[in-house]
C-alpha cells in the first residue's frame, strides 16, 4: 500500500466519511461519554486502540477460519465474539504490563464491546474487501475520526453547560441539536477525496 493511498484512506475515514457524524456508528458513547473533554479523549484513544487491533484480528479470523470453512454467514457472530474476547484480553494485558495506560483507559474499555463502531469497522472491512494492512489502517483512522468528533463535541458541550435553553430542550435534546450542527459542518467535507 503506497503512502498516497494511505493518505487518501485517512482523509476519507477521518473527515469525508466520519464514523460518527456521517455514518452514524458509535453514537451511544458519542452522546454518553462527552460531557468533559478529558474523558472524551480517553474514550477516543481507547476506541482507536481497540479498533486497530480488532480490525487486524477479524481480518485474520475471516481470511483463515471463516472463508476456508465456508462459514461466511457466521461473520456477525464470530466478529462480536472476537471483539468481546479481545477487549477482555486487552484489559488484562494493560492491567498487568502497562498500568499507566490501564488507569487512563480502564473504565472505557468494557464499554467498547457494545460500541457499534468497532463491529461496524470489522464488517465494512470484510465488505470492501480490504487487505490486512488496509484493514488495520481503516480501523485506526476511523477510530481517529471518532476521537476527533467526540472531542469537538465535548468541548462545545463544556461551553454550553451554563447557557440558557428553552426548558423542553434541556439535557438530551440540547446535546442532539449540538451534534446536528457539528454534523452539518462536517457535510462540508463530503465528496472530499484525492486520487
Amino acid at each position, binding site marked *: 500500500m503506497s503512502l498516497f493511498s494511505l493518505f487518501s484512506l485517512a482523509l476519507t475515514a477521518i473527515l469525508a466519511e466520519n464514523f460518527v457524524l456521517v455514518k452514524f456508528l458509535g453514537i451511544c458513547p458519542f452522546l454518553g461519554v462527552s460531557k468533559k473533554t478529558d474523558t472524551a479523549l480517553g474514550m477516543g484513544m481507547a476506541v482507536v486502540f481497540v479498533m486497530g487491533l480488532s480490525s487486524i484480528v477479524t481480518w485474520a479470523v475471516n481470511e483463515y477460519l471463516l472463508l476456508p470453512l465456508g462459514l461466511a454467514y457466521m461473520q456477525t457472530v464470530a466478529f462480536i465474539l472476537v471483539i468481546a474476547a479481545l477487549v477482555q484480553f486487552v484489559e488484562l494485558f494493560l492491567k498487568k504490563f502497562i498500568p499507566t495506560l490501564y488507569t487512563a483507559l480502564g473504565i472505557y474499555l468494557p464499554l467498547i464491546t457494545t460500541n457499534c463502531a468497532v*463491529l461496524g469497522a470489522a*464488517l465494512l472491512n470484510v465488505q470492501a474487501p480490504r487487505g490486512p494492512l488496509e484493514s488495520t489502517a481503516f480501523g485506526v483512522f476511523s477510530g481517529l475520526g471518532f476521537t476527533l468528533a467526540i472531542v469537538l463535541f465535548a468541548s462545545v458541550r463544556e461551553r454550553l453547560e451554563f447557557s440558557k435553553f428553552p426548558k423542553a430542550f434541556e439535557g438530551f435534546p440540547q446535546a442532539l441539536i449540538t451534534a446536528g450542527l457539528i454534523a452539518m459542518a462536517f457535510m462540508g467535507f463530503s465528496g472530499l477525496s484525492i486520487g
Partner: protein
Amino acid sequence: MTENKTAQQAVQTPEAPETQAKKQGRIKEIVLNGLILQNPILVLFLGMCATMAVSTSLVNAVGMGLSTTAVLICSNVVISLLRKLIPKEVRIACYVVVIAAFVTIVDLLLKAFLPSLSDALGIFIPLIVVNCIILGRAEAFASKNGPLYAAVDGVSMGLGFTLALCAMGLIRELLGGGAILGHQVLPEKAILLAAPCGGFLVLGCLVALTQYLKARVANKKKGGDEA
C-alpha cells in the same frame, strides 16, 4: 388462548403463582412502559445509531423497527428461559451469542426474501447485535422475568422502538424528500433533513416535544391534586 398461556405461565414460573387480574395488570404495565412511558428511543435514549442512520424514509424505518422487534422478542424469550442456567459471571457473553444468532437468522431471511430492504439497511442489520435496546432488555428485564412477560416486554419495547423510528422516518422523508412512501407530495424539499445532520436535529426536536408533553402532564396532575 388465555387459558393456554396461563398454563404455560404456571409451568414456567412456578415460584410466582399470580391471579388472572394481577397478571393482566402487570402485562398492561409492561405494554404501556414499552410503548410510551419508557419508550426506548424518546425516553431511554437507547439504540441511537440505528435510529439516526435508517430513519431517512418510512419504509426503512418500518423494516428496521420490525427486524429489531423480531430479534428482541426471540432473544428475550430464550434468555428468559435460560435465565437460571446461565452463570452470572459470563451472562453478558451468553446474551451476546443468543442475540447474534437471531440477528444472523433475520439477516439471512431479509437477504433471501426482501433483498431491496436488506440493501437499503446494509450494515445496520448485522449491527442490531450491538443495539443497546436488546442487550439492555436482556439484562434489565428478561434475566429476571418469566418467558411470557419477557415476550410481552419484547413486543412492546420493539413496537415502541418501531413507532418512534417511524415518526422520525415520516418527518425526514416528508420534509427532507417531499414524499411519503416514495410518492411525491410536497413541491419543495429541505435536503438538510435527509442529510446525516437531519437525524440529530429531528430526534432532538422529537425528544424536546416528549419532554414538553411530559412536563405538561405532570403540571396538570399537580394542578388537579391541588384543586
